[in-house]
């Protein structure tokens, strides 16, 4: 296959970038999209040009590193697929493909297609955990967990933290990411004691990072390689409202906010 590629090139954070055109020959339909990028880079090195920087690691769709907007869609046109698992047989000979980084104020470009997603780590650090120190846990079977709760919790926990939800959202909102973690932990008995604190702290951090507000376009769910449902966003909205209206929160606001 022969393809025309338009790739975003940007030297570093804060400097202007531009699209660069590459003709790519000899692409095999069995290649993954990233292997096609490897091919481009291999050729660039031969020509003495700096290769395109892009994030990748496991190349089996679970580490959450890879992050490209391909032809206007986060992770490309195939549903429930990370770009590393997108294969070139999805495209046709002669196609023109655009490749861009995730774009959000909270995800500044580091170089070319690599962005800084540490904002998501800080959202987790704000409350995406259960406060249990090593060694203090009761027996694993001491607290029964209904199978349905465990299953739905796992649906939410499947998030790989790639940030495609933010990239795909017209508002660059991180609601699906945040909601998935809230849904995962708040649903389990182990997560309940901190449920109200967690949702408030995580939403507060999410806002502080400069992510947008959810206006229910549901592009996030469409882009999510793990197909995490937007139902969790509704759940988080409710949990947040409930938590914000509680007497404990009001007291905390008085003491801590403002």
């Amino acid at each position, binding site marked *: 296959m022969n393809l025309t590629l338009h790739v975003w090139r940007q030297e570093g954070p804060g400097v202007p970038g531009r699209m660069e055109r590459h003709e790519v020959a000899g692409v095999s339909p069995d*290649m993954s999209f990233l292997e096609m990028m490897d091919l481009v880079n291999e050729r660039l090195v031969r020509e003495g040009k700096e290769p395109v920087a892009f994030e990748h690691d*496991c190349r089996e769709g679970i*580490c959450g590193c890879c992050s490209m907007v391909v032809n206007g869609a986060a992770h490309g046109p195939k549903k429930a697929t990370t770009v590393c698992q997108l294969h070139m047989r999805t495209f046709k000979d002669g196609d023109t493909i655009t490749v861009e980084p995730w774009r959000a104020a909270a995800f500044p470009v580091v170089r070319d297609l690599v962005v800084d997603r540490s904002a998501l780590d800080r959202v987790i*650090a704000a409350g995406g955990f259960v406060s249990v*120190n090593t060694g203090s846990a009761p*027996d694993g079977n001491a607290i*029964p967990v209904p199978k349905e709760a465990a299953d739905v919790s796992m649906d939410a*926990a499947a998030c790989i933290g790639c940030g495609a939800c933010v990239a795909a959202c017209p508002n660059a909102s991180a609601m699906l990411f945040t909601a998935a973690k809230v849904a995962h932990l708040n649903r389990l008995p182990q997560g309940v004691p901190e449920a109200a604190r967690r949702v408030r702290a995580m939403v507060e951090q999410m806002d502080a990072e400069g992510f947008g507000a959810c206006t229910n376009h549901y592009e996030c769910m469409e882009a999510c390689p793990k197909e995490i449902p937007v139902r969790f966003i509704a759940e988080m909205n409710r949990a947040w409202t409930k938590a914000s209206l509680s007497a404990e929160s009001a007291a905390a606001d008085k003491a801590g906010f403002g």
Partner: protein
Amino acid sequence: MALRLDSKVPSGPMDRKWEKHKFDLKLVNPANKRKFRVIVVGSGLAGASAAATLAELGYLVDCFTFHDSARRAHSIAAQGGINAAKNYQNDGDSVHRLFYDTVKGGDFRAREANVHRLAEVSTAIIDQCVAQGVPFAREYGGGLANRSFGGAQVSRTFYARGQTGQQLLLGAYQALQRQVGAGKVTMHTRSEMLDVVVEGGRARGIVTRDLVTGKIESWAADAVVLGTGGYSNVFFLSTNAKACNVTATWRAHRRGAGFANPCFTQIHPTSIPVSNEHASKTTLMSESLRNDGRVWVPLKAGDRRAPDDVPDHERDYYLERRYPSFGNLVPRDVASRAAKIVCDEGRGVGPGGRGVYLDFRDAIQRVGKDTIRQRYGNLFDMYANITGEDPYAVPMRIYPAPHYTMGGLWVDYDLMSTVPGLFVVGEANFSDHGANRLGASALMQGLADGYFVLPYTIGGYLAGAGTSGLKADAPAFLSVAKECAERTKRLLAVPGTRSPDSFHIELGKVMWDECGMARNRTGLERALKKIPEIREAFWKDVRVLGTGDRLNQNLEKAGRVADFLEFAEVMVLDALTREESCGGHFREEHQTSEGEALRNDKDFQHVAVWEWKGDGKAPELTKEPLAFEVVHPSTRSYK
């Protein structure tokens, strides 16, 4: 001077050793813990769990990862599950049975006391992870579900759908982020460790490169913990993530840490074969597929017919033929080797002839397509996505691929390397799996080390050794940092023409051909000749474009390949020196008349530990003899 290998295995009966040792370890006064700074390199299962736990205890922790986040390490890709001797299924499991299975599965090349401790703490791991909110699979009654895995006789494997590694890593990551939020751990992302600083016979800190700014930085601490994973990528094509590398452990080795059993690598039999010359990695599929799939190749070499056109009497179901009692379910190392043999005979299928069929035709006829879909639907989908073929209609093609390394830096019972103050956890150390790892045991070991072993033993070290006192601007740091900066400059300055990857591919081919599933003296000696040649060519002809003062992925890659090119030699040397076949190490000279592995307990019941003697000098071998007090060595047979 040979390495002094004191395993520090406590005295007393096997099942009391850990208890006794924990009591004997000195304690750090709670008020003094915040005076100690610990560096943890790597944030996979072992690193993240260690960093979080140390911070909970009150130590100051700096955690480093070259990823953009602490959640990306390759632990995340483990599918199957995690073993624990809970005996929730009441099927006769116990700490002793898990211990026994692991020692035997490791083909009697692991240290008994370490394995017993692993089995002991396995139960606490499950408790800890449940408390963290890991969504393990549950029964309708609300209790934890288990399954049998990797041919084990008991159901002791806990799992979270097919993403157990991911969920356990996220549990550890969240515990770590909690400490980051609390200011107890300083997380350094996109920071790659380039060297360890050893001064006065003690690890004092590390030198890193900030991958975004290119800044070479020194970090002082009272102890250093490496949780930097395995080196399967020495083969270039492996199931590991692309960034997995040997740099941290290799650099520590060059600073005095002994490297143990580097030739012990595990090759997984059910990977998707590479289909094009640009393939960048191999993808693993759960070996549970062998429960229903039948493995075969055509009888005649060079038979290029489509699988459906090969009549039954012209097919060779070679596993069923060679191992009538275990058939398609023989252990990983045996299945992998058998596939290699038939492909070497020219009977392999698919592009390049490196593949064998895993055929579900008979199973579909027997139980129906729907049942097969229920059992393996997601795996079939994954296969279809990668290969573009429909495995319900055409047999799958599989081929073995490297995916785990049992070898690693030598550690004593306290997980401390031969460099005092330098600890090694998880896959990066050699400790618990001997010559072959059992399924669902990697996650167990990583978390055992991080949550329940290191946090105790490091306290014992710190209580005895006290604070380091050496600051990051001390001459010892400056000189190592200077070396690192010069090496980076040197890589950028080579006026070459080839990408770092091209050398990596070349090295990987040599390693796979000569030091892969089956090894022999001629091949290994050939590799020992070729590796220095590739290394020399690398330093003459590598092309690293761009500069060192910003994100430069080719520069990172080049540094890692350079270290693989040094490490590969000692790996081959170890394989050459170990004149026996055991676990994942198969020497063709040492096999029975029926082609089975022939272990040599008389001469090789030891850990082979290699010491760096300098560039251009042969490494020196020291042996830690292994004694088996409880589980007596026997021969594995699957006929």
